[in-house]
């Protein structure tokens, strides 16, 4: 499209077009605000759409579809995500590629469906029994709506794993004017299936600790997929050495490959004040940083886009600064807790809000007061 031609769309629109181009071929959905536009656009754009009767079924159907060789996605919000958690554990254990878009809204419980929030990070971080990390990205702006889905799809396929994309009502339901000539090309993910004549071992670690994948339709090789503790063949075991090593591999597989899916934005100015944020609060941080720099304040910004596992580079950046401000739209600072634990260092200041986006002024005040 030529320069100067604009469209007026919401973030859901961009996410769906991008993820479809990246290779997602099936949407399984159950409606829930604020993820409904993702469902709506997916039903128009993805090659197949299935209307599930609930979110447990959604994740189970997705797992079946994935095992059969499709590349399914869904979109939900906390109440639906909560129902999915056991099945996400299953898909993680079975090593089935898929993407789950979690459009966050104000909690606890059903909270306020039409009010944004960034309150599900610690849930996502801790949802796998045993503390295993599911690769998780956060969308901070419209550019991310376009670029993160491709990386999420690639991570899901290359690491044989479910992947989470965190976003919120402020992105999925907010419309913006957008010049689409600036959008980068999205490449369709390349899927390689096991092709050797030798016996297929479904959970034998290959390159990067990831087993090769073969859809259930094979006529040549027996395929075993298992949600319980299992050996490399996919056979249930109580706690044999091989089976425990296989479970431990699931952790190592994600952590050791994090360089392939580390995404962040870092705008550096001096080594005094660092704003750290994720989700839509990041765009507010950018506005505040602009104003503060006009006041000759030295302020840098780290927008965390890969959230689980936490990339080491975040700590390298953080270590350079005297004051750290962690800005997030939740009550107690979930990203802050993930980065620093419960006993946060004296030079770390939390800036939080619930029920509305954090204001530019609030960030500026905190930096002026403490920076």
């Amino acid at each position, binding site marked *: *499209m030529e320069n100067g*031609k*604009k*469209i*007026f*769309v919401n973030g859901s*629109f961009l996410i*769906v*077009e991008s993820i479809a181009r990246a290779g997602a071929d*099936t949407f399984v959905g159950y409606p829930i*605000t604020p993820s409904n536009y993702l469902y709506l*656009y997916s039903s*128009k*754009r993805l*090659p*197949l*759409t*299935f209307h599930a*009767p609930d979110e*447990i*079924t959604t994740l*189970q*159907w*997705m*797992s*079946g*579809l*994935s*095992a*059969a*060789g499709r590349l399914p996605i869904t979109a939900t919000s906390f109440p639906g995500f909560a129902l999915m958690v056991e*099945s996400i554990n*299953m898909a993680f254990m*079975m090593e089935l590629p898929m993407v789950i878009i979690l459009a966050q809204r104000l909690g606890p419980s059903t909270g*306020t469906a*039409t009010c944004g929030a960034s309150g599900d990070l610690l849930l996502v971080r801790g949802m796998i029994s045993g503390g295993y990390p599911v690769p998780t990205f956060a969308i901070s702006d419209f550019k991310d709506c376009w670029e993160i889905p491709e990386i999420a799809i690639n991570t899901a396929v290359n690491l044989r794993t479910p992947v989470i994309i965190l976003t919120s009502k*402020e992105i999925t*339901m*907010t*419309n*913006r*004017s957008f010049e*689409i000539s600036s959008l980068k090309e999205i490449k369709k993910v390349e899927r390689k299936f096991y092709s050797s004549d030798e016996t297929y071992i479904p959970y034998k670690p290959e390159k990067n600790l990831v087993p090769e994948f073969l859809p*259930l*339709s*094979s*006529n040549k*090789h*027996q395929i*075993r*997929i*298992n*949600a*319980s503790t*299992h050996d490399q063949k996919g*056979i*249930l075991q109580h706690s044999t050495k091989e089976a425990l090593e296989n479970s431990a591999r699931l952790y190592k597989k994600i952590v050791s490959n994090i360089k392939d899916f580390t995404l962040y934005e870092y705008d550096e100015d001096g080594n005094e004040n660092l704003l750290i944020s994720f989700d839509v609060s990041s*765009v*507010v941080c950018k*506005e505040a940083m602009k104003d503060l720099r006009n006041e000759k304040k030295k302020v840098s910004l780290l927008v965390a886009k890969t959230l689980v596992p936490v990339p080491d580079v975040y700590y390298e950046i953080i270590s350079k600064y005297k004051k750290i401000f962690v800005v997030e739209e939740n009550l107690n600072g979930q990203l802050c807790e993930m980065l620093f634990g419960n006993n946060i260092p004296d030079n770390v200041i939390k800036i939080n809000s619930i029920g509305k986006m954090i204001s530019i002024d609030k960030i500026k005040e905190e930096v002026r007061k403490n920076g």
Partner: protein
Amino acid sequence: MDKKFLNSNKLPFCAGCGHHLIAQNTEKALEKLNIDPLDVILVSDIGCHGIIDKFANSHTVHGLHGRSVALAAGISLGLKNKNKKVIVFIGDGGATIGMQHILEASRLDIDLTILIHNNMLYGMTGGQASGLTPKGFVTTTTPDKSKTRNYDICQIALAAKASFVARVVVKPDFSNIIADAIKNDGFSLVEAIELCPSYAVKMNKGMKISEILKEIGEEEFVKKNENYRWEFYTNSTENLFDKVKILEKKYEHKLEKTFCIQLSGSAGEGVQTAGEAFCYASILSGLSVNHRGSYPVTVGVGFSTTEIIISPEQDCTYNVNSPDIIIITSLDGLNVNIEKLKSFKGILYLDNSLETPQTEAKIIRYDFRKFGAKNSAVFSLFYILKEKEIYPIDALIDGLELANLKDKVDLEKFKQDLNI
């Protein structure tokens, strides 16, 4: 056919358990149908029956408790090779916890066969009562006999429009029924009734399945219904960008810095669409736009707020500290802003019908509702545009067209009233 379905004659079940016979009859049925094990995807649930997958030469998938039918449905829906047969082994406990999945697979007549190993209790976890435990049955959690009746899972599946349903008491050969179930090109449910030797037989001495069935009014049967065919939902476009309006700059604006308008009124009075029209007009005038809606969960009742940020910069901000102006066209719109207005220092445009709220804002009043509730939101934006002269009125008229509003508002009356 190179291999048998089972790779061993020694299955991992207790002596006397009906699970042996279900697995062996499944093998016989597959042999009768000449189906190669690699054309079978066996999905097992949690329960004693679930240990079978190690002993199968088919593809095996071992999932969660109660979810095997949904997992199998996903596999069946996703298979490109329709010659594959998806078979589910599930117990009465799994059928209870996962009943929704049985209903859904029945309703959609998804091509798979489920074999419910109904021993009327949870065998693996210690012999507790399930939803399929009949009244009068002794289990470890109903030691004085079950006081509640059981689900009739077959009738439930039939009510959900399953195309093949059978109830059978486990016996040496019932492979014909399983073969018919597998042959059915749709959803098949076989309820195979057995007694758990570790719990049921010991706790219900001398009880016979035939007596239980008689007592609860159930019997063995096979029912074949017509298959249900439906088409998958496929995409209507290869590119979402083909479906949206392309906007090119047509008008000049006079805006020097970012400006935010908040318009609050009542749901059903076109607040969001009016905001959308204003956004289109702004884009046609070369501005960048951020448009956020806010409303209660019930879309058609209560307040409706639209926040429009417009900017001469290339990339509009996502958020401002406070709107420059707030327009309120109804009591719902006023009530939702009472707190905010107390410290609001911009300009408040208030409908004549509303009481003056506590505010630090400068108040300008007008009769925004004079052309009726449905016109109030759009009319208020015409009023603002006339006053602020951000860009030509014609841009907003184009905006109305783009938002499919042009024929729904009294444009001529607006023009007359505002001397446009």
